[in-house]
Structure formats: C-alpha cells, structure tokens
C-alpha cells in the first residue's frame, strides 16, 4: 500500500488553498476582491467535485456559481463603485468578540462531528442499505411521480447485493454491517446518465418546483430592479 496517493496530495494542497481563499473572502476589505476570492473558492470546490467523481456537478458548479452568480455579484459591486470605501473588518468590541468566539466554537463542533462523528464504514453501509428499502417505499407508498423506468436497486453493485440478499432480516443485516469494508463505487459512478435518471424520475416533482421557483425569482428580481428603490427614509 502506498503511503500517499496523488489524490491525497492534491486534496491537501487544494484544501489549504480553498481555506485561505475562503478566509480572504471574509477578511479582505474591498468587496471586489472578496467576490473574486469567492469565485476562486468556488472554482477550487469544483476541483473537489471532480475528485469526488462528480464531473457533472463540478462543471455545473463552475458554470452556475463561478460563471454566472459570481459575475452577477461582481457586476453589482462594480456598479456601486465601492472600491474606495474601506470598512473596518474587525474592530474590538464585546459583540465582535462574541461573534468571532461563537463562529470558532461552531467550527470546532463541526470539525468534531466531521472527524469523529462519522465513520466511513457506517456511511457506506447505511446508504447502501437504505435505498433498497427507501426507494421501494417512496415509489410505491408515497406515490412520487415516476416518469421513466426506475430500478430501485440500480445503485447497488452485484457484489454488494449479494451481501444483503436477506436485508429484511435484522440480525443478518447487522452481521453484514460488520463485514462490510469501505468500498468506493466504480469509476462509472456519478455518470451524467445515472444522475439525470434520478433527477427526472425520483426528483421530478422537486425539479419542476425548483424551476418554478427560479421563474418566480427572475420575475421578482426584475420587478425589484425596476423599482425606484426603498419605501421609507432612513432615520439617522
């Protein structure tokens, strides 16, 4: 077994880069730099998605976030022309200390949960087992609209399926849990075809709902942008 794979090295390199970039988003006083660093953060995030075998999500991330959302942000900031307005990012006051402390506390908790609270074996087993039960339940009892042919078991490889033939039997299931070793899915995992099949069958309602939401958001932002702005005076 190799000590480290190239993937590990890339991960640590990009992890350091993304954390620095994200911190700069918050701590740089010029909003344009903030926005550019956020764009950088999102681009690096898409690299992580590539590494996690989610190429389609990665390019979508790049297109939607870096290519559209952040451009929008930058355009707005540029239109406001706030480049010379430097705000004090950290000024020492009890409230500020409380804010920083609680954010740090949250960070600590989240790291704790991420590092200690989740066992890769559990995740693998739980999510591998779950679709067998859930997908059937969802498709049949809750009447989620199904457009195309859905095979609930398609997420399972044959080998894994063999492990859990009798998954209804609780005892056997637990025994199987102990035996299962972390097994990453094959390279085909995360292909656009399987993803779109999910999106247009199990999640078709959510998909349509979200598209409606987008339409509403478009209309809303056009209406807002056309307005003269504000409804009352600031009392200073």
């Amino acid at each position, binding site marked *: 077994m*190799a000590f480290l*794979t190239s993937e590990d090295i890339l991960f640590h390199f990009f992890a350091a880069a993304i954390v620095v970039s994200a911190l700069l988003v918050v701590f740089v006083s010029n909003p344009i730099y903030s926005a550019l660093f956020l764009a950088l953060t999102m681009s690096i995030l898409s690299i992580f998605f590539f590494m996690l075998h989610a190429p389609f999500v990665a390019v979508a991330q790049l297109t939607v976030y*870096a290519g559209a959302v952040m451009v929008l942000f930058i355009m707005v900031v*540029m239109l406001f022309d706030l480049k010379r307005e430097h705000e004090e990012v950290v000024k020492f006051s009890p409230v500020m200390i409380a804010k920083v402390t609680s954010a740090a506390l949250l960070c600590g908790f989240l790291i704790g949960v991420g590092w200690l609270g989740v066992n890769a074996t559990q995740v693998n087993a739980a999510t591998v087992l779950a679709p067998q039960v859930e997908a059937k339940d969802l498709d049949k009892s809750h009447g989620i609209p199904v457009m195309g042919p859905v095979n609930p078991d398609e997420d399972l490889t044959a080998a894994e399926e063999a492990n859990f033939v009798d998954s209804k039997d609780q005892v056997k299931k637990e025994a199987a849990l102990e035996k299962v070793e972390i097994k990453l899915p094959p390279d085909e995992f995360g292909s656009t075809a399987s993803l779109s099949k999910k999106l247009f069958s199990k999640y078709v309602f959510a998909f349509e709902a979200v598209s409606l939401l987008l339409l509403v958001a478009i209309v809303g932002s056009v209406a807002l942008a056309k307005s003269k702005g504000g409804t009352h005076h600031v009392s200073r």
Partner: protein
Amino acid sequence: MFGRVTLWIGTKEMGSGLLEFAINALKIVIVFVAIVSTVPLLVWVERRGSAFMQNRLGPNRVGPLGLLQLLADAIKFIFKEEFIPDHADKVLYFMAPGLALLPAALTFAAVPFSSPVTIMGHTINMQIADINVGIIYIFAVASLAVYGVLTAGWSSGNKYSLIGALRACSQMISYEIAMGLSLIGVLIMYQSFSLNDMIASQIGGFNFNWHGVHHAFKYLPAWGIFYQPLSFILFVTCGFAETNRMPFDLPEGEAELVGGYHTEYGGFKFNMFFMGEYGHMITSSALITTLFFGGYALPLISPEQVAAFWIDHGAGLAGPLHLSIADVSSLMTTLTHLAVFGLKTGFWLFFYVWVRWTLPRFRYDQLMDLGWKTLLPWSLVNLALTATVIFFARVS
C-alpha cells in the same frame, strides 16, 4: 481526471506513473505553444485577408508574403513600455490579462484533435484530457472568460473601460445561454457529453431511422450539420458573439468606447488579451468542426479504413523510423487526422476573418434583442423539435 493520473510516491511503480505524467505535461506544452503560435499566423491571415477584400496589398514588405511582419509585431509588443494608469487598481490591472488568456487556453484541453496513437505499447490520446463531460467543461471554462474582461474594465479606472467591460460581460452571458441551449438538440442527438463519442457518431454516411424504416444516404457524411442545421446556425452566430468578433464587437466599438475594456492596456498585456481572443476563436472553430463537421475524421471514411490504408502504403516508412508496421500505420493515421482537423478548423478560422470584413457592426440594443428574442427562442424551438422527432422515432 485526477484520479486517473495516479502519482505513486516511494514505490517501484513510480516510473510508469512519471512517464504518464511526463507525456501529459508534454501534451499540454505542445498544445499551448501551438495555439500561441497560431495567433500571429491568424493575424497575418486577417490582415492579408482584409487587404484582399478591400482591394489593397496589406503587409508585404517584411519577409516572404509579409510573414515576418508578425515577428516584428511580437517583438514590438514585448518591448513596449509597461504603463499603469493613475487610478488603476494595480493588482487586478496586472491580473486581468492573465485571467483573459487562461480560459482560452484551458478550453482547448477537452478538444480531441486527432485519433489516438499507439507507439511501442503506449497509447497516447491526442487530447489533453478525455473528460466525459467535455462539452460542458468547455462551456464552464469559457464562462470564466468574463472575469478577465470585467477585472480589466474595472481596474483600469476608466469609464469607457468599465462600460465596455459591462457590455462585453452582459453580451457574453446572454449569448452563452442561447449557445448552450442551441447545443442541447445536438446533445440529444449524440446522447453524450464526450467529444470523442460525438466524433465517433459522425463517422460514416448520413442515415436515420424513422418508424422503424432505415434511410441511408450513401454520399452524404453523417455530420452534425445535416442532422441539426438550425442548431449549427445558432451556434455559429453565438460563437461570434462569444468571441466578440466583428458583427458583435460592441464592447470595443472604437467610435463609442475608444477601445472597450482594454483601452488602458498596451504592450504585452494588450497582447495577452489579443491572444485570448484568438484563442477563443480557435477553440470555437475547433468546436464547430467537432460538433458539426465530423471532427478529425475524414468524411465517409472511418479511422479503421485510414489505418488500413497506411498499413498498405506506409511500409516504406517503417525502416527509417525503426518502428513496426502497426506503429507506423497508427502514427500516420494520427497525422492524417491531425491534418484533416487542421484543415477544417482552418476553414472556420478563415470564415471568422471573412465575416469580420463583410458584415457591419450591430447596434447594442439590436445585439441584445437578437440574443434574447431571436436566438434564444429559436434554440428552444430546435430543442423541442429534436426532442419530439427523436421521441417518435424511438417509440416505433
């Protein structure tokens, strides 16, 4: 992509990993240099072409046919004084040209420019990275091109630059949508995001199934343009807008905005914008070729037939090159395809020049109207039409 470039450290297998790494690095360098060196050539074509169309001579003094004029220009760019405007944001001002060039170079990574070559047991893809979502990858990276434009326009501290940048930006975003939508029909046709798959589907003759009846046209290649003519027109139009080329070069309309977002740029930094624009042109032409004109493949002739041809006729090369006949065949096939690819792409690059000196410039509101009110609806029509036809063709 990264998972596959596995780099083992501290093991015996390090060697083979390194070789793969080295080949990839070499490919990257070669492709980059090729693109960069194509740019001066294009400039020459542009200037000679315009001169031809306007019935004058163009650059013809330096070197044969004026070809060395390009070298002179390049040297001039490099040695010009670096100049920073007073109100500029210095960091971004320097960064912007790089941001403009980077996506142009990155997009080409997904384009397969020839068939794979197998030499001495090693198969080398003639493509920097075979990404299975290639086409979307290209779009995603191309969409990052706005950053160069925006930062350049804003950091110059000049209102003409800023307005030019905002214009360019909204133009690119608007046409990106129409462009992406126009391609969905093509994607439905090919049922893949991978450019290699698309080229593979375009090999052979034009044929289709309709209600179970197979129709074949022997003398027409199975190119995308014959299946998706509307999509082709839309895509090419959007391509012009995306590259800020002539009928749509509003962002740098000199009558209104001096020089657009790169007004304040000169010397090498300007050169980088220049290269970025031409890089986009090259990628765009390569995409048109790949999507609609069969890519590197010869029309109606499959790569296997080409390989067979070289096995028959390339035996003479095996000796001097110290290679087996199969290797020679593979190499020659690749080179043939490379030439085909170069010809097709070259034609579309010439087309860009042709159009530039033929059509007048649009007005800005006309440009936006065209993008949103004409191209977008038509690409939706194309999508709906394709989906319907394919649905009924499949059903039966």
